[in-house]
């Protein structure tokens, strides 16, 4: 994350600044003095959080693995959808990849991030599926490249989704964006800094000049406000497991 991007994100939402340059200098000062070194406290990285769940699953806690499935099903689904023909196939292959990952969990030593490991299993499962179907598996190294994890495939998704799934995806995105716009300024800034810029609570507290507890509360309230609007669309009923 660059200093400029911090400043640009903060400009509409925080203390009014005369110019962009002022904001950049202000953010740069914060970055130099407090943001960069603030890798303190009990914060766990995403990788560490996943590793914690993996360790529990390896110790026999299936539910811990199910949480990883909930967390990564959409991301892995996007990956698989780049290889197979339609959403039904993508769901089948994604499910198969998760089950293969569970069976191989004993061999996972945490040398790489869990998703990197899962990514490879997903690619191999999709390729094997294509071969079994008598279809040609992609030979391009692009799919084997870990950089492909961040592949921008919004347009591809547009072509791939069924009309219903496409509508649902668009509605979810619109609801989230509309909810963001409706949020009070301090909540919107807090969740943007966290989710888009990836800052820790400590770093956000420094940037927004407020206690960490306030940051935690603002991010929570922002999420709840968005989730409240999303829940009717997500068809959440009591008899469903998730």
């Amino acid at each position, binding site marked *: 994350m660059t200093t400029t991007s911090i400043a640009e994100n903060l400009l509409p939402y925080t203390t009014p600044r005369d110019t962009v340059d002022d904001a950049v200098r202000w953010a740069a000062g914060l970055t130099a003095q407090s943001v960069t070194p603030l890798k303190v406290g*009990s*914060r766990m*990285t*995403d990788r*560490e*959080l996943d590793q914690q769940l993996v360790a529990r*699953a*390896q*110790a026999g*806690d*299936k*539910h811990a*693995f199910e*949480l990883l*499935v*909930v*967390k990564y*099903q*959409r*991301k892995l*689904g996007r990956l698989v*959808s780049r290889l197979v023909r339609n959403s039904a196939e993508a*769901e089948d292959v*994604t*499910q198969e990849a*998760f*089950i293969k990952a*569970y*069976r191989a*969990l*004993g061999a996972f030593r945490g040398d790489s991030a869990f998703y990197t490991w899962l990514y490879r299993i997903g690619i191999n499962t999709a390729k094997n599926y294509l071969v079994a179907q008598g279809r040609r598996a992609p030979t391009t190294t692009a799919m084997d490249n870990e950089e492909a994890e961040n592949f921008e495939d*919004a347009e591809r*998704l547009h072509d791939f*989704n069924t009309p219903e*799934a496409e509508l*649902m*995806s*668009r509605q*979810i*995105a619109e609801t*989230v964006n509309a909810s963001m716009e409706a949020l009070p300024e301090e909540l919107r800034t807090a969740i*943007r800094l*966290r*989710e888009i810029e990836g800052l*820790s*609570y400590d770093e956000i507290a420094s940037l927004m000049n407020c206690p960490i507890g306030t940051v*935690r*509360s603002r*991010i*929570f309230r922002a*999420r*709840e406000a*968005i*989730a409240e609007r*999303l829940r009717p669309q*997500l068809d959440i009923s*009591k008899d*469903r*497991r*998730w």
Partner: protein
Amino acid sequence: MNREHLSAHVDGELDEPQQRVILADLRNDVDAVQTWNTYHMIGEVLREKRVLHMDVAGRVAQALIREPTPLVPKARRLHASTPARWLAVAAAVAVVALSTRLLQWNDLSGSVAPVAQNTASAPPTQVVQANPALNPPAQLAQAGNNSEAGAYVAMHHQWSPLSGFQAVDYVGAGAAR
């Protein structure tokens, strides 16, 4: 369920005890799992602009019921530079050094004591060479003055891990008195 804690857990900002509580909630509370899923989805939309609407978690959970648990034995790691490791190494070296020293001291005292007694008067204690090559068991038995215990000790002395060191036949010494 404390949803604010759940939100902080998604961000990895909870301390250990709070994490345990949240993980227990996620195990037992369907609503907690759904909320956790929704929070992650919100983050994905904000970062990636769009989200693939896919929900295979229920199907995977059903399939996992039939799967055996992949148990992994807990690996104990020794960190190379932990103070505890160096302390353990130092303690082991100290024990070895002390043991060697004590054995050497026993060796010396076993040899010197009768010499001191010899200079005073008749020796009440007989010194026995424990090395079977130097003193065969038969000789040891004789040295025990027909004492059954002395014979027993002599018979088994060749198997002693201390063979090569000198020992004092106290039973024989007592009988001599």
